[in-house]
């Protein structure tokens, strides 16, 4: 038998893709991905309509999706994250049906439970053999981990691997095995390497960011969690990476040896493992080339599926063993609910990703954010969108002080004993508004443009249109 086909058109015919079907994509090629656009273009050319797209994330490079929505080719969208370009169109109401937002853990959970069925999964694979054993570790478009694609491969009715590096059978160092794969398609290029690795993964040099990062590292030190065996995740934002760097200095100085680093992995996490701060890395997505190189060469740097990363439906997942996570926020309210879906004008420009999964799992979930951004307080009375529930957020670190969730009084005591500037979150809001003035509450439209589904499958919030 041969699984290798010569064109997307052939696949569409072989799989009898019809109007109304659900097709899925993963986002490890990030803003360099060509595959989602390539597939939708082929389906549009064939005259297909009313498709439902389930993409683990949508980036700005997927702008052509807006045209497919306007033309009725795509009428449903499910994602864990949507970047600002497509997000703006969604907020302005381009899609009749609300978008379904999930989390990185909730998506594989819902796929496995059958609440988010997939007809055809398209897996962008930087290297595949002729039977579909595939990996992200090798090839000119190498992206490292393929963590988010596992659930698609395992549960979609049909699975197509699209690669730009077809190798003879068998590829032994595979991530996704041939047992799930129906067809393999070789194309010239699955992505632009310059867009695959993020440009945001740099340590901040902004003095405000460095102050916050110092506070964050000291708070982790004071939390009681900084001891041998500690596990840790951090985002790829500048202050979060700086906090990781300061934490590394503390761990090396005190001789603390952690157990694992989790999540989207950057060079800084790789450096921490190599310096002896962690035994291992559990990697659902690589953010830069150093992480890709490390996952390829270091057996202690282990690829995990999104299911194992964060699924509440798995018998256990890595977030359940997580001690400390550092996360960002566009807004946080005085009940510690966090918004990472919309900007302060209500436009969609993000999504949960693993935010609410790690917050729920970690012993200490810490938000790090400047108290004000462009004349707006980070602390508000009520977030425009509840992305992560406040009862899973423990600490807010800003340059003006650290607020601790009243649910965690012992943490506040530890921070105070360590001389950290602990204050009430209402006080932070007051300080911010003394600087910025009191903003007028913005008015949103009546149309629901997105439903935010929590990791357990329940509706957490809705996002309204922007008028």
């Amino acid at each position, binding site marked *: 038998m041969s699984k290798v086909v010569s064109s997307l058109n052939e696949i569409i015919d072989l799989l009898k893709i019809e109007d109304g079907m659900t097709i899925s994509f993963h986002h490890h090629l990030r803003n360099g991905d060509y595959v989602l656009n390539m597939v939708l273009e082929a389906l549009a050319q064939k005259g297909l309509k009313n498709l439902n797209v389930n993409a683990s994330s949508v980036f700005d490079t997927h702008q052509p999706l807006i045209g497919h929505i306007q033309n009725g080719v795509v009428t449903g969208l499910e994602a864990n994250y949507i970047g600002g370009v497509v997000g703006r169109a969604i907020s302005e109401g381009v899609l009749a049906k609300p978008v379904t937002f999930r989390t990185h853990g909730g998506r594989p959970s819902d796929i496995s439970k059958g609440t988010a069925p997939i007809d055809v999964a398209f897996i962008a694979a930087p290297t595949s053999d002729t039977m579909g054993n595939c990996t992200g570790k090798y090839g000119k478009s190498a992206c490292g981990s393929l963590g988010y694609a596992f659930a698609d491969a395992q549960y979609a009715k049909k699975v197509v691997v699209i690669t730009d590096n077809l190798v003879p059978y068998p590829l032994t160092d595979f991530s996704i095995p041939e047992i799930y794969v129906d067809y393999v398609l070789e194309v010239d290029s699955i992505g632009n390497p310059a867009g695959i690795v993020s440009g945001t993964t740099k340590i901040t040099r902004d003095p405000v960011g460095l102050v916050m990062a110092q506070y964050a590292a000291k708070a982790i030190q004071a939390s009681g969690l900084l001891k041998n065996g500690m596990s840790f995740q951090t985002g790829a934002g500048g202050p979060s990476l700086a906090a990781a760097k300061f934490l590394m200095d503390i761990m090396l100085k005190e001789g603390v040896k952690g157990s694992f680093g989790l999540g989207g992995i950057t060079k800084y996490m790789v450096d921490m493992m190599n310096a002896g701060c962690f035994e291992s890395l559990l990697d659902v997505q690589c953010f830069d080339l150093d992480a890709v190189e490390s996952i390829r060469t270091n057996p202690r740097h282990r690829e995990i599926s999104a299911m194992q990363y964060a699924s509440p439906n798995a018998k256990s997942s890595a977030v359940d063993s997580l001690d400390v996570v550092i996360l960002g926020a566009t807004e946080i309210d005085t009940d510690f609910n966090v918004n990472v879906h919309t900007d302060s004008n209500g436009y969609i420009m993000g999504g949960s990703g693993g935010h609410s999964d790690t917050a729920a799992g970690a012993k200490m979930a810490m938000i790090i954010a400047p108290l004000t*951004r462009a004349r707006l307080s980070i602390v508000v009375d009520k977030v425009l969108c509840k992305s992560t529930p406040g009862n899973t957020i423990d600490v807010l670190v800003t340059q003006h002080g650290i607020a601790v969730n009243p649910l965690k009084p012992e943490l506040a005591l530890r921070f105070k004993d360590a001389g950290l500037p602990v204050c009430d979150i209402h006080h932070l809001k007051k300080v911010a508004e003394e600087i910025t003035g009191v903003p007028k509450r913005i008015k949103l439209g009546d149309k629901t443009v997105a439903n935010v589904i929590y990791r357990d499958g329940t509706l957490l919030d809705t996002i309204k249109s922007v008028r």
Partner: protein
Amino acid sequence: MEIKKLATAGTLESSDAFITVEPNENGIELNLESVVINQFGEEIEALVYSVLDELDVKNVNISINDRGAVECVLRARIETAVMRGKE
């Protein structure tokens, strides 16, 4: 104070504002763009007129591209643009 020539002040960095003033013959014409127009649009507009009034500027074309500057920054940038434009 009379605006005699085109002058600018500020930058397009986040939390700053870029101000342009130009001579005008019939009153104050304000062109305001702001990333926080929904939250602070009215305050910013009122501030512009108030600062121009304090400086006794009666005729000017003033363009403001506000990237989320706080009030004291806006005030400083407007004053600077006006001072540069009067010479």
